[in-house]
């Protein structure tokens, strides 16, 4: 029988190469998948990994997808480093989109150009508010944050459905479940003319730097990680476990909410029932693939965005089903978790 045996000293080098190995396994797996579907693997992989990047429009679309993935994963990395298992970035993103959309709908054509900042702020606060429900229940009743945050994601999705089908439905929208389109002043300015890419990518990169400093250099970030790594040491040092819960969830909620706002007030310009195509969940993979490190999250968000765009392209160009994106994402996470297991354990025959 085979069994797993703990390695005495897990290799640091392997820890950082594991994401690359996982990516390679995913590519190999993709090759077989394309073969099984009767497509040329070369053409398939090209559509996934090359085509999106061979023109400016494609690059801008990848960058656009990176915005929510990067923002959500940065927040999740902070949570996971604090041992807070926030699975609900999706819900925080959706509610951030809702509050941002609500404020955007209040704009009039003659509001100031800076009005979009208000929209972003609303998104941040919305995400924080949604995350604070999880924080409160965990803090006050020791409720499991995995379940609470996950369930709240569905509640957030249903809230959005209610709004776009009910009070916020565009009266001139032929009964489609969409809100009115936002006024131009409520929208995030474009970064590149002729593309859909907004200043959101710059905001996301600034957030990356801020999170990097917070995690690596700030005392508050240090306290958070001690409460996560070694709760007894945190108690010994006098760092509050409650602070760990609240700060990590609020930061994570804020970043996810900001991501939601940048999405609705960016490429979409209105609230739609499925404005988030699971960015909050995909960001969990991004955070792990990025080794919970802000720099790693940037790399991982890029890969994940590529898979999103590649998945869309393979639908139109190769006639593959939409599920292909999910299959690739899942394969990537599964390979990574497997690789991680073998960093800490080795197989032994017994």
């Amino acid at each position, binding site marked *: 029988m085979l069994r797993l045996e703990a390695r005495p000293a897990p290799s640091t080098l392997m820890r950082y190469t594991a994401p690359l190995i996982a990516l390679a396994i995913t590519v190999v797996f993709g090759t077989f998948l394309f073969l099984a579907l009767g497509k040329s693997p070369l053409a398939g992989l090209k559509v996934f990994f090359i085509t999106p990047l061979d023109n400016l429009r494609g690059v801008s679309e990848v960058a656009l997808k990176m915005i929510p993935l990067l923002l959500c994963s940065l927040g999740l990395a902070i949570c996971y480093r604090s041992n807070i298992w926030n699975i609900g970035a999706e819900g925080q993103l959706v509610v951030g989109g809702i509050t941002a959309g609500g404020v955007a709908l209040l704009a009039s054509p003659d509001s100031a150009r800076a009005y979009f900042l208000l929209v972003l702020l609303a998104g941040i606060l919305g995400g924080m508010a949604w995350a604070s429900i999880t924080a409160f229940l965990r803090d006050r009743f020791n409720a499991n944050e995995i379940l609470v945050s996950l369930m709240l994601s569905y509640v957030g999705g249903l809230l959005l459905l209610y709004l776009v089908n009910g009070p916020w439905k565009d009266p001139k929208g032929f009964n489609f479940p969409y809100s009115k389109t936002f006024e131009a002043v409520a929208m995030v300015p474009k970064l590149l003319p002729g593309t859909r890419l907004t200043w959101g990518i710059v905001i996301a990169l600034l957030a990356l730097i801020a999170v990097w*400093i917070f995690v690596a*250099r*700030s*005392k*508050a970030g*240090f306290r958070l*990680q*001690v409460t996560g*790594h*070694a709760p*007894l*040491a945190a*108690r*010994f*040092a*006098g760092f509050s476990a409650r602070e760990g819960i609240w700060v990590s969830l609020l930061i994570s909620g804020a970043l996810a909410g900001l991501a939601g706002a940048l999405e609705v007030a960016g490429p979409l310009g209105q609230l739609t029932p499925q404005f988030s195509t699971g960015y909050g969940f995909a960001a969990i993979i991004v955070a792990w693939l990025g080794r919970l490190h802000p720099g790693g999250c940037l790399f991982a968000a890029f890969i994940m965005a590529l898979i999103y765009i590649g998945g869309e392209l393979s639908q139109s160009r190769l006639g593959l089903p939409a599920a292909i994106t999910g299959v690739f994402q899942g394969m990537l996470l599964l390979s990574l978790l497997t690789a991680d297991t073998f960093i800490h354990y080795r197989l032994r025959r017994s």
Partner: protein
Amino acid sequence: MTDIVPRLDLKGISKRYPGVLANDNVSLSVAPGEIHGLIGENGAGKSTLMKIVYGAARADSGEMRWNGERVQVASPAQARKLGIGMVFQNFSLFDTLTVVENVALALPGSTPRAQLAQDIEAMGRRYGLPVDPGQHVYSLSVGERQRVEIIRCLLQQPSLLIMDEPTSVLTPQAVEKLFVTLHQLSAEGVAILYISHKLEEVRSICSRATVLRGGKVTGVCDPRAETIASLSRLMIGAEPPRATGEARTAGDPLLVIDRLSMPPLERTGKTLHSISLSVCKGEVVGIAGVSGNGQNELLALISGEDARAPAASIRIVPTDIGALPVVARRALGLAFVPEERLGRGAVPLMGLDLNTLLTHDKGLTRHGLISRDAITRLAHRIIDEFEVKAAGTAAPAKSLSGGNLQKFIVGRELVKNPQVLVVSQPTWGVDVGAASQIRQAIVALRDAGSAVLVVSEELEELFEICDALYVIANGRLSARIATRDATVAQIGELMGGSGMPEAEHAAA
């Protein structure tokens, strides 16, 4: 005894672990129907010996005879097949399953549940161990859980029953009931090996006892014919050397605890009963006692990790600190070295430099940002001054040996020149060189005028560095004893829980 074939006969058992000889040529024999005590301090080698008997560890040399025949026990399953049953100190029951389900899991073969439930009840009636087979384990008291463990063992009809510190979690009433059961088993011919460090208990129930100290047998005796004092001398050793102290004059009391009573935070903890102590400037005061008698609960209340105490019950004169958080107590000059180094005293995966931030703040951060230079310098200074062997200031705490990490953690507190230092098990598991270095540092801090409180299981250490001693047993603290007037017998008796006037009331 010689005409009876012993049920279990161990001869010349030795077992070496890296760096320590856990069992050194140990021999022991138990006759059928005998209740045999195995006594010794923590770390004396009792657990290792029992693991060998139960097949959970293999001896390096020596032989084991079972009913006169030489056997090699390779696994606990084989031990059970021979007829050896063991009741562990930490229960191995699944909380979410019922009693009968737990028992079924441990038994070989498959007995129908209803039949098994009847067996459990019958066994319970026979030995005075009533349990409801259908009840979930999480709803049982500690005493009831132990009954389940014992019944589970008895259902396999053992002819040798090993009880590992069975009374450490029981109330005095439950202890009495347990003893009745054990006597009944012994009358039926079951041999019982009773592991304990509670000498009173061993004297009241065992007809013979083997004493271990430092892995060696230091005596085999009839405990009923011994006194607590003579037993503790076997267990602890000769009178240790005293600190050559001319009577030094200590200053005013600095750390004062006044009639502190407190129920434990965790269900398995000890309740503290009216604890009073004082530590003066320029003196080292020790608290002796077997661990698990309330030391951890008391230390957490002093350090502030548990801040439930009434404000005035703990003071760093003149401030009431009982209800202050950890950081505020530290600001008043209190430093604490906990017993657990990895995970409490230090974050295992973080570097020594970052680990300084656990108890230092001043000068290490600016505008909320950590100054890399400052923490590196501080870590460097601790490493230099206390001769810590580490791969550098960024070496993870986990990579250091126990002794070196302890030097670092003690050093981290001492470089602050704390007014009050509280240390738990300062040299536990530390090699001889590092241990004497740590003791010297503690004494130097005292000579500089600080108040030091040391909690330790090692009497020799306490006798060496302390000016005065207290003994903690079962959540109660003895009166203060000047070290130069103390004897090992006296301390040992107090450690066993006798001689504390209040304690006897509670047991009655």
